[in-house]
C-alpha cells in the first residue's frame, strides 16, 4: 500500500529513492513514536523529502493519498474510555472540569460523541455541531468549547487543527523544476570565476622549491591564497504575455544556475524593465520593488543576465507610456540603459530560436541597446554569454 504512495511521489517529480523508502519502513518498524497519521506525515517527510522546495508537492500528494484513508479510520474504536478519562484529569483545569459537569458530565459527552460519529460521514471544518477542526463543537481539534475533546492529535501541543499538509505552508519554496538539464549546468560552470582571493592557505610548491634553492637549501615556505567561487549574479526574468511558451526553459536555466554562484538574485519583469520589478509572480501587484532601489542595492561587480524573448511592440521600449501594464513616465530603453550603466557585465539570453529574430523589430532594437550581447538560450549561446561574463 505504501508502494503506491512512493510511486505517486515519484510521479509528482519528487526525487525519492528506494534507499529512502527503505529508511521510512525501518523507521516505522522501530516504533519510537505513537502511531498516528500526523506522526506518520512527519516521519515520511523527514525520510523521503530532502529539500523544502518539494514540501508543497509532498503535502499535496500526501493529502490526496490519505484523504480516503482518514475517512475510514474508526476513531472511536481507538479511544478507550479510561484512557480518555485519564487525559481529562491531566489536561483540564478545575474550571474546565466544572464546565464539563455543566454539560452533563463525561459520560453524556461521550455518548453524544458516539452519536455524532455515527451521523458524520464527511470530513468537517468549522461549524458548531460536527466533529472536525475549528468551530465550537465540543468535539474535534482546536475548538473554542471548553468541553472540547481533542481527537486524533493526542500528543500535539501546537494546536493545528487543519491538517499540516492541508495548509500548504511551503508553497513559496517550490521553484517547480528539477535540474534535468545537464548541458546548461555545464555551460554555467564557465561562470565560476576562480578569483585568487582569501586567506593565505595553500602551499605553493613550485615557488617554495625555487626560493628554498635560492636560500641555499634552508627551507623557505611560500603560500598562496585559496581559490574560491566569487561570482555574483543578478537575473531578471521576463514572465507573462508572449513569454509563457518559454517559461519552462527559463526556469530550467534558473534552477541549474542556483547552485553555481556565490550570490544569485532574481527578479521578474514583463516584456521590458520599467519602474518596478517583482520577486514572486503571483504577488506581482502587491509586492513590487522599485527599480531604483535594485540599481542602488547591488554592486556593479554583479553580472546581469536578462532572460526574455524580447518580443513586443517597439513602443514598449522606445516610448514613455508604452508599457502594456501601466503608464510609465520613462521609456523602457532609459531603464535598460540605467541597468547597463550600473552593471557593465550584462547579457540578454533569448529563448526564441535565433532564426526568428530577424522578423522581430523589437529584437533588433534591444540588440542595439545591448550592444549585440543577446544570445540564444542554447548551449552554444550560453557558452558565448558566459565567456563574456567571466572575462
Amino acid at each position, binding site marked *: 500500500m505504501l508502494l503506491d504512495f512512493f510511486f505517486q511521489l515519484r510521479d509528482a517529480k519528487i*526525487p525519492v*529513492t528506494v*534507499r*529512502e523508502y527503505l*529508511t521510512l519502513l*525501518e*523507521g516505522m518498524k*522501530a516504533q*519510537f*513514536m505513537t502511531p498516528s497519521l*500526523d*506522526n506518520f506525515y*512527519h*516521519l515520511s517527510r*523527514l*525520510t523521503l*523529502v*530532502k*529539500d*523544502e522546495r518539494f*514540501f508543497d508537492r509532498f503535502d499535496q500528494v500526501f493529502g490526496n493519498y490519505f484523504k480516503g484513508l482518514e475517512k475510514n479510520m474508526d476513531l472511536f474504536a481507538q479511544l478507550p474510555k479510561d484512557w480518555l478519562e485519564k487525559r481529562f484529569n491531566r489536561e483540564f483545569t478545575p474550571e474546565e472540569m466544572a464546565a464539563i459537569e455543566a454539560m452533563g458530565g463525561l459520560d453524556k459527552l461521550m455518548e453524544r460523541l458516539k452519536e455524532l460519529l455515527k451521523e458524520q460521514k464527511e470530513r468537517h471544518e468549522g461549524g458548531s455541531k460536527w466533529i472536525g477542526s475549528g468551530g465550537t463543537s465540543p468535539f474535534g481539534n482546536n475548538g473554542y468549547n471548553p468541553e472540547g475533546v481533542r481527537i486524533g492529535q493526542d*500528543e*500535539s*501541543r*501546537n*494546536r493545528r487543527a487543519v491538517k*499540516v499538509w492541508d495548509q500548504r*505552508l*511551503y508553497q513559496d519554496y517550490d521553484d517547480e523544476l528539477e535540474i534535468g538539464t545537464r548541458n546548461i549546468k555545464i555551460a554555467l560552470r564557465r561562470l565560476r570565476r576562480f578569483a585568487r582571493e*582569501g*586567506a593565505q*592557505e595553500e*602551499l605553493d610548491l613550485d615557488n617554495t622549491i625555487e626560493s628554498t634553492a635560492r636560500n641555499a637549501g*634552508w*627551507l623557505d*615556505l611560500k603560500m598562496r591564497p*585559496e581559490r*574560491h*567561487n566569487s561570482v555574483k549574479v543578478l537575473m531578471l526574468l521576463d514572465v507573462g504575455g508572449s513569454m509563457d511558451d518559454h517559461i519552462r526553459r527559463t526556469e530550467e536555466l534558473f534552477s541549474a544556475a*542556483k*547552485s553555481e554562484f556565490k550570490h544569485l538574485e532574481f527578479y521578474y519583469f514583463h516584456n521590458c524593465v520599467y519602474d518596478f520589478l517583482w520577486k514572486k509572480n503571483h*504577488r506581482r501587484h*502587491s*509586492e*513590487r*520593488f522599485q527599480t531604483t*532601489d535594485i540599481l542602488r*542595492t547591488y554592486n556593479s561587480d554583479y553580472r546581469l543576465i536578462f532572460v526574455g524573448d524580447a518580443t513586443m511592440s517597439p513602443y514598449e521600449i522606445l516610448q514613455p507610456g508604452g508599457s502594456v501594464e501601466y503608464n510609465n513616465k520613462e521609456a523602457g530603453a532609459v531603464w535598460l540603459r540605467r541597468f547597463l550603466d550600473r552593471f557593465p557585465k550584462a547579457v540578454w539570453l533569448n529563448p526564441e530560436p535565433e532564426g526568428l529574430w530577424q522578423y522581430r523589430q523589437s529584437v533588433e532594437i534591444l540588440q542595439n541597446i545591448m550592444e549585440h550581447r543577446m544570445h540564444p538560450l542554447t548551449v552554444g549561446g550560453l557558452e558565448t554569454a558566459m565567456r563574456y561574463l567571466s572575462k
Partner: protein
Amino acid sequence: MRFEGSKTYVATDDLKLAVNAAITLQRPLLIKGEPGTGKTLLAEEVAASLGLELMQWHIKSTTKAQQGLYEYDAVSRLRDSQLGEARVKDIANYIVKGVLWQAFEADKPVVLLIDEIDKADIEFPNDLLREIDRMEFYCYETKQLIKAKHRPIVIITSNNEKELPDAFLRRCFFHYIQFPDKATMESIVAVHFKNLKKELLDAAMASFFGIRALPGLKKKPTTSELIDWLRLLLAEDIPASALQAKDGKDAIPPMHGALLKNEQDIELFNRLVFMARQGR
C-alpha cells in the same frame, strides 16, 4: 535516549520527532530554516538534555573535509627534519586529529554538530559520504582504520546558500524549522522572560508579526531579534501603550532598530507608516 525539548528550548512536536528518529535510526539530521530559528542551538540542547558531550565543527568557506578527519602537518615535520629532532621518526607525531576523529574515538556517544555546511565548497559534502554513512575512515599516513566506537548523533545545519548534493541528502534526514507561529512564539518568549506583563507581550507580538508581514523586507526580524527587542523594552521600562497608537494601528514602535537591521528596511518601514498616516 529520547529528546523531549528542555526548559530553555521550545521544540515543536515535529522537531522532536525528527530528532528522535535521527537518534533511533542513527542517521544524520540535516536542519534548515530561517535564520534565528534556533538551528545551532538545537544541537546544544540535544546534547545538554541527553547528558552527552557536544563536539562542534564550524564550517567556513575554506574548510576542507579532510580537516574534520585529520591533518598531516608535513611542513613542521620537514622543518624538524632539517633541525634533526628525534620525533621526526614517528609520523604519528605529525597527525593532528580532527573533530570527526575525536568524535569517533570517544568512549561515550557524543553529539556532533556540523554547523553551516553550505558555507563550504560544493564538493565538501561529497567528500564526507563514507564517513557519515559508515562512520569510519582510513588514515593513510599511519595505515589505520578509524572506526566509530559509538555512532555519534550527527546534527548538520544549513542556511541554504548552496544546494547540497543528492547523494549526501539521501543519507540524511531532513527537517525544515518553520518560523514559529504565535502560540509557539509566546512559549519561546515565556522561556526567556519570566514575568512579562501580558499587555506588553501582546502589543509587542502584534508589532513584531506586523513588521514580519510587511512585503519586500530584505531581512525579516527573527526570534532572536524579538528577544533582544523585548529586553530593550524592559530595560527602558516602556509601557505597552507606547507600542500602539490610540487607534490601534501604525505607530512606529520604539527602538525598532533592534528589529530592522538594514537601512533600506527601516526606510521602507518608515515610508509605509507615513503612507498609512496620509491615507487617513
